[in-house]
């Protein structure tokens, strides 16, 4: 609750900061401070200190899982701010508003990750989505951005419709929106199943799982790269948390009904994400597809739905977000977004190239990085849930993913070229290295995150 309120307030403050401060630097500093405050508040709550006592009537419940995820999300956002917030200046003039929207999204994430009522789920998802529609379209003179924004909006609204229908049907079958108060009326079980399916589809849409992923590449590609970075990582992870919670709380009773469906969706997601990524020439678009394939892996958590899955999802969220944010942060600095644009980067910027390698290895799931362990958790959870074939399929697809991630490494290290990277500050380097360090650290000691769940 702390973080939710703080972030919402921060959003409001940022909204007005544009009138107060004229310098972007001041706005940026303010945003950093506010985010730090949010994190502090979050930590305090995790330690059991709540600043605000709000009775949510059982609609929100901030358990360790949610808080921990919020913490991860906030930390990743902080990293994102440090690495890329300067680049938001290049998107458009409404600098402070961007921050405001980002803070609102964080608030939405807080809601989506701690909902206990379908209403809250709906509101949370919408609070996340609406600012995203806007952020996607912020590069107003760029037709690609416009187009992406409209596509995102239309499809998003469509999926909202599906979600609402699903909620309505679930409500019809159970008589309540509060997850703990649901009583399944056996007469209406078929309603519940249809509702579940609709919710499944719409959530699959939000986390860009196939075959509801079509918006993802276009939107990620069209959106200003800074915001792609944010929306493809933290927001997506939040979607998964919500997804997991929803199915854990509401539909765990009818698991046989959806287990195969989820497995199927997972498999197609993995397949489409990886296979299509192979052919991409633009790193940005490749990352978009890679995010689909990573989503496939996270879907395994939904499939497995056990404690490993939850731990793993947290780890996954952290690992995936850090790595992707890092890569995007460098991508933003590049002139040329194609693979060839990275040729020879290792010569020019050895340190940055090395950190990128760490991130890519993490995404590919190579041991000693957080990416491996998070994938490992997912596989473990899946096998525990009996999906050994699915696990095998997943690792095969992971092997495919190595192909496109390593293409970038090849470009940087083994090809000659003269890439143009602009505006790389010491601070930027330092943060990247720190993130790489975190990636490796988590790869060695995942308990750093997961033990919070149990202490």
């Amino acid at each position, binding site marked *: 609750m702390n973080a939710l309120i703080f972030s919402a307030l921060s959003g*409001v403050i940022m909204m007005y900061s544009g009138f107060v401060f004229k310098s972007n630097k001041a706005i940026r500093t303010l945003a950093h401070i506010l985010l730090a405050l949010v994190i502090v508040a979050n930590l305090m709550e995790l330690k059991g200190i709540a600043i605000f006592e709000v009775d949510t*009537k059982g609609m929100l419940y901030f358990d360790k899982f949610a808080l921990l995820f919020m913490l991860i999300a906030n930390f990743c956002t902080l990293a994102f701010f440090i690495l890329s917030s300067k680049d938001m200046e290049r998107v458009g003039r409404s600098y402070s508003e961007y921050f405001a*929207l980002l803070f*609102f999204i964080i608030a939405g994430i807080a809601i989506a990750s701690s909902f206990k009522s379908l209403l809250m789920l709906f509101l949370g998802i919408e*609070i996340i989505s609406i*600012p995203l529609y*806007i952020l996607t379209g912020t590069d107003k003179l760029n037709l690609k951005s416009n187009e992406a924004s409209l596509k995102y909006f239309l499809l998003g609204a469509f999926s909202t419709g599906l979600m609402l229908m699903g909620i309505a049907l679930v409500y019809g079958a159970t008589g309540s929106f509060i997850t703990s108060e649901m009583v399944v009326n056996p007469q209406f079980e*078929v309603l519940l199943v249809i509702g579940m399916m609709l919710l499944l589809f719409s959530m699959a849409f939000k986390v860009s799982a196939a075959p509801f992923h079509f918006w993802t590449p276009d939107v990620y590609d069209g959106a200003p790269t800074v915001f792609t970075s944010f929306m493809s990582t933290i927001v997506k992870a939040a979607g998964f948390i919500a997804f997991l919670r929803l199915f854990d709380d509401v539909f765990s009773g009818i698991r046989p009904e959806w287990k195969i469906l989820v497995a199927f969706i997972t498999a197609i997601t993995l397949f489409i994400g990886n296979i299509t990524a192979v052919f991409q020439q633009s790193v940005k678009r490749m990352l978009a597809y890679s995010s689909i394939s990573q989503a496939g892996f996270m879907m395994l958590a939904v499939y497995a739905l056990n404690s490993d899955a939850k731990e793993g999802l947290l780890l996954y969220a952290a690992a995936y977000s850090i790595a992707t944010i890092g890569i995007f942060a460098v991508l933003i600095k590049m002139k040329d977004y194609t693979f060839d644009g990275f040729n020879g980067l290792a010569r020019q910027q050895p340190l940055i190239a090395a950190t990128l390698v760490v991130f890519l290895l993490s995404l590919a799931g190579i041991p000693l990085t957080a990416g491996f362990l998070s994938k490992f958790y997912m596989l473990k959870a899946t096998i525990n849930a009996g999906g050994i074939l699915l696990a095998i399929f997943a690792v095969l697809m992971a092997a495919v993913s190595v192909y496109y991630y390593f293409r970038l490494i090849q470009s940087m290290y083994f090809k000659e070229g003269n890439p143009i990277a602009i505006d790389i500050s010491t601070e930027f380097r330092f943060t990247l290295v720190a993130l790489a360090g975190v990636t490796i650290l988590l790869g060695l000691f995942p308990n750093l995150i997961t033990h919070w769940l149990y202490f």
Partner: protein
Amino acid sequence: MGISEILFWILAALTLFSAVMVISSKNPVFSVLWLIFTFFTISAHYILLNAQFLAIVNIIVYAGAIMVLFLFVLMLMNLGKESEPKKNRWLKLAGAVAGGSLLLVMVAALRHTENQMTELVTGDIGLIKNLGKVLFTEFVVPFEISSILFLSAMVGAVVLGKRDKPVENLITPAVAADEVAVVSIENRDV
């Protein structure tokens, strides 16, 4: 078959008809008008279902504010005339067929429960007084949270509309209209 039931069937038929007209009208303006008509019939449904408050809000917010906004934008863009190029016939057909099949499947899955849904009851929970009470006790948190939503929508409209002067002027009233709508709802509740 009571009067309310007859009414229900008539309304239902009207609703569906107007909805079909929405999607089949060649002229977008007519579509909007048909949509408004649909909203009216839905409001009538609400009344049948004893949800008077919703019926009113529906008319005010949807038919009043939102649809006017739509119309406004349409007029602004000068899209009143048939401007839609021919869409691939096959694609259209495929869309219709796919949607139709989806309907069929869903209805088939739901056929056991279909009967239940038409039963109508009376009651007074739909009254503003009762709803307001619940809204500000149990549902106060989502209510506040929805303000975040509005704030972000507002900021968004501002962000998107900022640069070009003429459009900015256009968008701002839209936001204002929303604000007004919210305010009006709040006022009514209280």
